[in-house]
């Protein structure tokens, strides 16, 4: 069993307990009430999204480093597989994050979208990485597709801190943004458990998706008897 699969299964087990704890054992928030329990899936999704896109950065750097040293594609496709898988899983958890944010915001602040700097940054990041997936869909040649998506990933990732800063500055002009970060100790346990749980699950999913990316490339080449 591959390490990523083991982590994935461990993550599932932790997730089950974490959700149970978050829903039924942890105390409700004094001000917001039970709606605040969404935190136990919302914050973990946020961290997981960031971890996924950081893995994409590492995969992109790995591929580009090989290019700069003059190596052709073969034998190094692992970087490209993990780039594709980390972006796809990152986009999925980013999407979940945004939807959870809206489900939480509507009853609490009366609007689906509050221009909270963190959520808005994730939304912009989400669009940037969806664009990378779109680009990969429009380029057939494996070598060119790997290089172009690595370059775009680098350009996009470097932008994230700047997006966060500019949105925070831009939105703080309108209304101060309150966030429930003062976490009661009894809440920290399920939060920590779920944070690692969702991350391990994401790693497991990325492992599978990377293998799939590798197989589809080999399958694409196999029908002509080409080796990877």
């Amino acid at each position, binding site marked *: 069993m591959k390490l990523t699969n083991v982590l994935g299964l461990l993550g599932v087990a932790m997730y089950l307990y974490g959700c149970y704890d978050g829903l039924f054992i942890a105390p409700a928030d004094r001000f917001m009430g039970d709606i605040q329990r969404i935190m136990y899936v919302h914050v973990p999704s946020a961290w997981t999204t960031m971890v996924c896109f950081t893995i994409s950065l590492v995969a992109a750097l790995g591929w580009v480093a090989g290019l700069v040293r*003059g190596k*052709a*594609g*073969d034998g190094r496709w692992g970087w490209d597989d993990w780039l594709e898988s980390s972006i796809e899983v990152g986009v999925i958890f980013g999407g979940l994050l945004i939807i959870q944010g809206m489900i939480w915001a509507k009853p609490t602040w009366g609007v689906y979208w509050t221009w909270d700097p963190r959520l808005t940054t994730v939304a912009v990041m989400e669009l940037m990485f969806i664009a990378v997936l779109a680009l990969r869909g429009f380029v*057939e*040649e*494996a*070598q060119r597709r790997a290089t172009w998506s690595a370059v775009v990933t680098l350009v996009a990732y470097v932008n994230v801190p700047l997006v966060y800063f500019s949105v925070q500055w831009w939105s703080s002009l309108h209304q101060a943004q309150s966030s429930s970060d003062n976490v009661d100790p009894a809440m920290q346990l399920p939060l920590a458990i779920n944070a690692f749980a969702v991350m391990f699950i994401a790693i497991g999913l990325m492992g599978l998706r990377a293998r799939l990316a590798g197989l589809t490339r080999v399958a*694409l*080449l196999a*029908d*002509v008897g*080409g080796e990877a």
Partner: protein
Amino acid sequence: MPPIAPSTTPATVQATGLSRRHGARWALRGVDLALHAGTATVLYGANGAGKTTLIRLLASAMRPTAGSLRWFGDVSPDRVRVATLSHHDGHYDDLTALEHLSLGARLLPSPRAGRPPRPSPHDLLMRVGLSARSGSLVRTYSAGMRKRLAFARLLQKGADLVLLDEPYAALDPAGALLVDGLITELRGQGACLLVSTHQVQRTAALCDHAVRLDEGRVTWTGLASDTVGHPSVERGPT
């Protein structure tokens, strides 16, 4: 495969097990080839045999998927010493012939020690017969005139390895004579030429060696003079 012509200096370009894949298809597989200075080689084969892929790999316009390439004994291509005439003529429609050559003159480094100075744009235009139209935009040129300008830009480099991909295409008889003269002149100056063409007879008469490609593999190599009577040439590439 033994190098075609024994020679002390390293081959101008040496390919070993050279392969290139486009997505699912192997355009070139396991090509071993050594070309030497002062020689001209005609490359022939059916459409899709991999001629253009081989030319683009030797021109370092493309990276090989497998195998290795050495230019002038070195792994990294010294592109100043390599000149290519490809299907795309590489011109800007909105510049004139003269402007292309003046730009080339400014972009190219001064010639290496012991090499003759670069011919001036006017001499080049004279050489390819474009002096009359040197001031009009390339957009207004015929296909033949565009090819002549491509020759002028190629000559401007004074390269040691010259790769010609179907030089005779879209040329009138006068233009074809120009190509013949060009091949003979460059070979005489000690350059190494690889000419990919379907006019095998005409080109073979000017070259030393011949290489035949079929479905990405080298299926025959030998002296250019042998191609005259060679069955595969008489029947024409399959």
